[in-house]
C-alpha cells in the first residue's frame, strides 16, 4: 500500500501528537495537590477532625452539604449524627467554617498560611469549580490564592 505524501503526513502526525500530549508529558510525576496522608493522622491526634473521614469528605462533601440543606430547610432537623456517633449542628456557616477558615487559629499557630491552603478555595480554584455558596452564606475573609 502506498500513501501519497506519506512522509509529510506521518511527520505531521507525530508533531501533532507530541504537541497535544505535551501538557501531560511535562507534568508526569508532578502533582500540584499534595496528598499528605500523615497530616490527617496528626490532625486527628490533636482532636481536629471533620464530621466524616477525609476519604469520604473529599469526593462527597457536596452531596453531604446537599443532604444537610434539605434536612435543615425542609424538615427542620438540625443535628447530624456522624458515622462515628458524634453529633454536629448542620450548618455551613456555623459548623464547617469553624475549621475550614483562614482564621483557624489552631492551624495558623504553626503554619503561616496552612489554613488558607485548606479552605474551600484552595481546592476549588485548582479544580476550576465556582460554587455560589458565598452569594448568601457569609464566609470569613478569604483571599483568592
Amino acid at each position, binding site marked *: 500500500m502506498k500513501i501519497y505524501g506519506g512522509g509529510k503526513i506521518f511527520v505531521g502526525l507525530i508533531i501533532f501528537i507530541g504537541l497535544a500530549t505535551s501538557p501531560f508529558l511535562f507534568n508526569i510525576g508532578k502533582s500540584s495537590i499534595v496528598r499528605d496522608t500523615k497530616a490527617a493522622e496528626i490532625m486527628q491526634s490533636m482532636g481536629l477532625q471533620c464530621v466524616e473521614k477525609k476519604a469520604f469528605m473529599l469526593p*462527597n462533601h457536596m452531596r453531604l452539604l446537599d*443532604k444537610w440543606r434539605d434536612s435543615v*430547610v425542609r424538615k427542620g*432537623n438540625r443535628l447530624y449524627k456522624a458515622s462515628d456517633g458524634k453529633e454536629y449542628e448542620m450548618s455551613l456557616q*456555623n459548623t464547617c467554617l469553624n475549621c475550614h477558615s483562614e482564621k483557624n487559629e489552631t492551624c495558623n499557630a504553626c503554619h503561616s498560611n496552612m489554613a488558607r491552603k485548606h479552605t474551600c478555595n484552595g481546592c476549588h480554584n485548582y479544580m476550576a469549580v465556582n460554587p455560589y455558596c458565598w*452569594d*448568601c452564606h*457569609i464566609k470569613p475573609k478569604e483571599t483568592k490564592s
Partner: protein
Amino acid sequence: MSMNRRDFLKIAGISTIAGIGGTAIVGGLQKGVIEAAQTAPDTDTLTGKKWGMAIDMDKIKSEETLKRVTEACHRIHNVPDFSNTKDEVKWIWTETFEHSFPGQEHQFMPDAIKHKPFLLLCNHCDKPACVRVCPTKATFKRKDDGIVMQDMHRCIGCRFCMAACPFGARSFNYRDPRTGLKPEEINLDYPTRTKGVVEKCTFCRERLAKGLQPACVEASNGALVFGDLNDPTSEIRRILASKYTIRRKPELGTEPNIYYIIGGSDYAVVPEIK
C-alpha cells in the same frame, strides 16, 4: 453474519434487562454512602403543630416599641435597608388600620385605632396562596409546625408568590442585599440572601430550633405572644379564648395565623384553664 428475528429479539431483551438491572444496582450502592448517617431535630427545639401569634395592639404604646421589634428582626436576619420603597425588603413592618384590614374601617371609629400603626408580618396561613403558585416548590408549608418556609436555594425569582400573597408579606431582592447592609452590623451566624430571590418572615425557625422565641416576640415586652394554636392549654389559645381578635382578610380563605387583639385593654392575667 445472519440472524433470525427470534434470536435478535432474545439478545435485545437480555441486554435491556442487564442494562436496567446494572444501573439499579450501581445507583443503590451509591445511595447507601450518605444514607447511612442520620439526622435529628435539635434537642432544645420548641415543638408545636401550628405556630401562631397574637398581637395586642393596646400594649404597643409607642413608636419606639415598633422600631425595637422591627429592628430586632431585621438585624438578626440581615435584612437590608435601601431607604427607598421600591427596593425595600421587609419581614415585619407597619401599616394603618385601613390598609391592614381593608373594608373594616368606617368614618366614626376611634382615632386611636384609625391612625395607629399595625404591626404586620407573614401570616403563615393554613392554606397559603404563595405555596400553591410556586413553580419550583421553593416556598412550602412545613408539615411538622406549619411554618411557611422558603428554600432560597430553589427560588428562581419568578415572583408568582408576591402576586399571590394578599398580605404583601414578600419582598424581592432587586439589588444585591449586601450593598444595603452595614458591614459591621452583619450577623455572621445567619446568611444573607442573593440578588433575585424572594424573602419573608420565617417565624425565626432558626431560633425555635434553639429553644428561643422569635426575635420580635422577645423584643416586644409581652405585646406579641407566640405559641402553638393546636394546643388548647397554650398561652396563646387561652388569650384567644378570652379576648375578641381579628385577622387580616379572613374572607380570602387563606386562614391566616396572626391574630390582632383590639381594645383588649389588658390581658395581663392569662386566664386559667377551667
